[in-house]
């Protein structure tokens, strides 16, 4: 039986970690992810886990300690946000290329500057090419569920890639919601134990991790890593199918919300999708064929699958909650546009950058976006492709 419990996103992640009981947690605090190691430290003090809890001196070190532990054959976890994730940057790539399946919880927060502690995806999007799988949750339940699936995806022999479980800073990390927690023994049975084939502490099989790869080998190593990311797609679906069978909640690469016959649609991520769904419902009541696609898996990006869903639409707004400074759109727009480019029949696409640094996103704002999409659908005129929304204008 699932247990109804009131938990913040951070406590939900810490709870999942307690149930999984990882071998190593290397922690360094940063707002708004700090509560995750804070809750976990209590579990350690109370003897609820037998995790080696290491307090290190930086995020560069926390992820490095996790990599050392993973190479030694352990299941290792950590959590961070914003500048902390940026400080891990170098080590993130080492985790990916060394194929060490560390699981990293990210309470997504704006990057400086101006200095800001609130939510957007500038931290996680800046690391989208680091070789991590990235799962995003809309609410506390999805964040908890994504965490329960994370280790199985990351550690799968055909994948062996590190993974970020992303939640929206403060909005998800600190807001308390009623969610369903699964029983400890059922979680343990679902996640299973980690038994890598080769590891540093296996004395009968000496191992070297992360060797130098000259140009005669680098390309091959990167192709193999790219293949692992492709393999992750099927593994993500397989684990989600088993999750649904075990716990009853269904997940895919993305959630299609009222997309069956949608003519105008939004592609959006995280908690903002909940707000946008209210706008979709309102429009549907008025007979407007509006829909929404909420991206759960950003890496690997489900391009082909997304294109199939969007091909029937007339106009689509991609909602980017991070600024990429490309002068032609944010990262989610680039991926979505790339996914649609070879469709015979494709929608008009616009990019809207919104919600930066915790700027509110409202149902009224979502309705404005759909209003613009309806205009594009009727006239075929796109207007400006890349715009910002929610800022004060002179």
């Amino acid at each position, binding site marked *: 039986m699932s247990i109804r419990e009131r938990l913040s996103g951070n406590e939900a992640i810490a709870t999942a970690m307690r149930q999984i009981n990882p071998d190593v947690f290397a922690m360094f605090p940063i707002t708004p992810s700090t509560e995750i190691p804070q809750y976990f430290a209590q579990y350690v003090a109370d003897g609820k886990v037998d995790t080696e809890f290491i307090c290190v001196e930086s995020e560069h070190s926390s992820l490095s300690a996790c990599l050392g532990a993973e190479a030694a054959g352990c299941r290792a976890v950590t959590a961070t946000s914003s500048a902390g994730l940026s400080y891990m940057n170098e080590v993130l790539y080492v985790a990916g*290329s060394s*194929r060490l399946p560390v699981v990293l919880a990210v309470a997504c927060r704006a990057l400086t500057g101006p200095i800001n502690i609130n939510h957007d995806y500038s931290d996680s999007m800046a690391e989208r090419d680091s070789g991590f799988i990235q799962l995003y949750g809309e609410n506390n339940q999805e964040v908890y569920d994504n965490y329960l699936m994370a280790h199985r995806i990351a550690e799968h022999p055909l994948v*062996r890639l590190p993974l970020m479980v992303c939640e929206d800073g403060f909005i998800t990390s600190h807001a308390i919601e009623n969610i369903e927690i699964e029983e400890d023994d059922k979680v343990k049975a679902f996640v299973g134990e980690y038994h890598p084939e*080769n590891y540093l502490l296996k004395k009968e*099989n*000496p191992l*070297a991790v992360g060797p130098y790869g000259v140009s*005669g080998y680098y390309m091959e190593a990167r192709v*193999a890593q790219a293949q692992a990311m492709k393999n992750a797609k099927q593994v993500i679906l397989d684990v989600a199918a088993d999750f649904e069978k075990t716990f009853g909640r269904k997940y895919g690469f993305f959630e299609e919300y009222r997309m069956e016959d949608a003519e105008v649609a939004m592609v959006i991520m995280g908690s903002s999708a909940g707000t946008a769904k209210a706008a979709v419902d309102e429009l549907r009541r008025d007979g407007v064929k509006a829909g929404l696609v909420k991206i759960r898996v950003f890496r690997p990006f489900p391009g082909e699958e997304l294109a199939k869903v969007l091909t029937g639409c007339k106009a689509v707004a991609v909602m980017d909650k991070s600024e990429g400074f490309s002068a032609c759109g944010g990262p989610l727009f680039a991926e979505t546009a790339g996914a649609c480019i070879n469709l015979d029949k494709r929608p008009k696409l616009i990019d809207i950058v919104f919600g930066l640094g915790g700027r509110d996103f409202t149902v009224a704002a979502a309705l404005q976006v759909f209003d613009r999409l309806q205009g594009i659908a009727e006239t075929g005129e796109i207007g400006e492709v890349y715009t910002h929304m929610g800022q004060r204008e002179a």
Partner: protein
Amino acid sequence: MSRKAAEINEQIPWQEMTVGCEIYEPGTSRLTKTGEWRSKTPVWLEEKCKQCVLCAPFCPDACIPVSDGKRREFDYDHCKGCGICIKACPFNAIEWKEDEA
């Protein structure tokens, strides 16, 4: 795939590389001759050598083999020519090879 380092070379396809380029056995530096990086070469003058063996632990690349308590000829397959052994030797029994200086 647990392929041994000796079976990995610049002809094998990416599908046959090990995961994350992991190496599954020790001592694989024997397979790679890094001595070709050397631009200057230390030479051991056996007649001057008192076999104090101070040079061997100073070598950063373990290129001065020691057996039966005595240093032996340089491992030129791996010596980078850093010259630390020349500085370490109290008896001037190691010097740079002429015409390379």
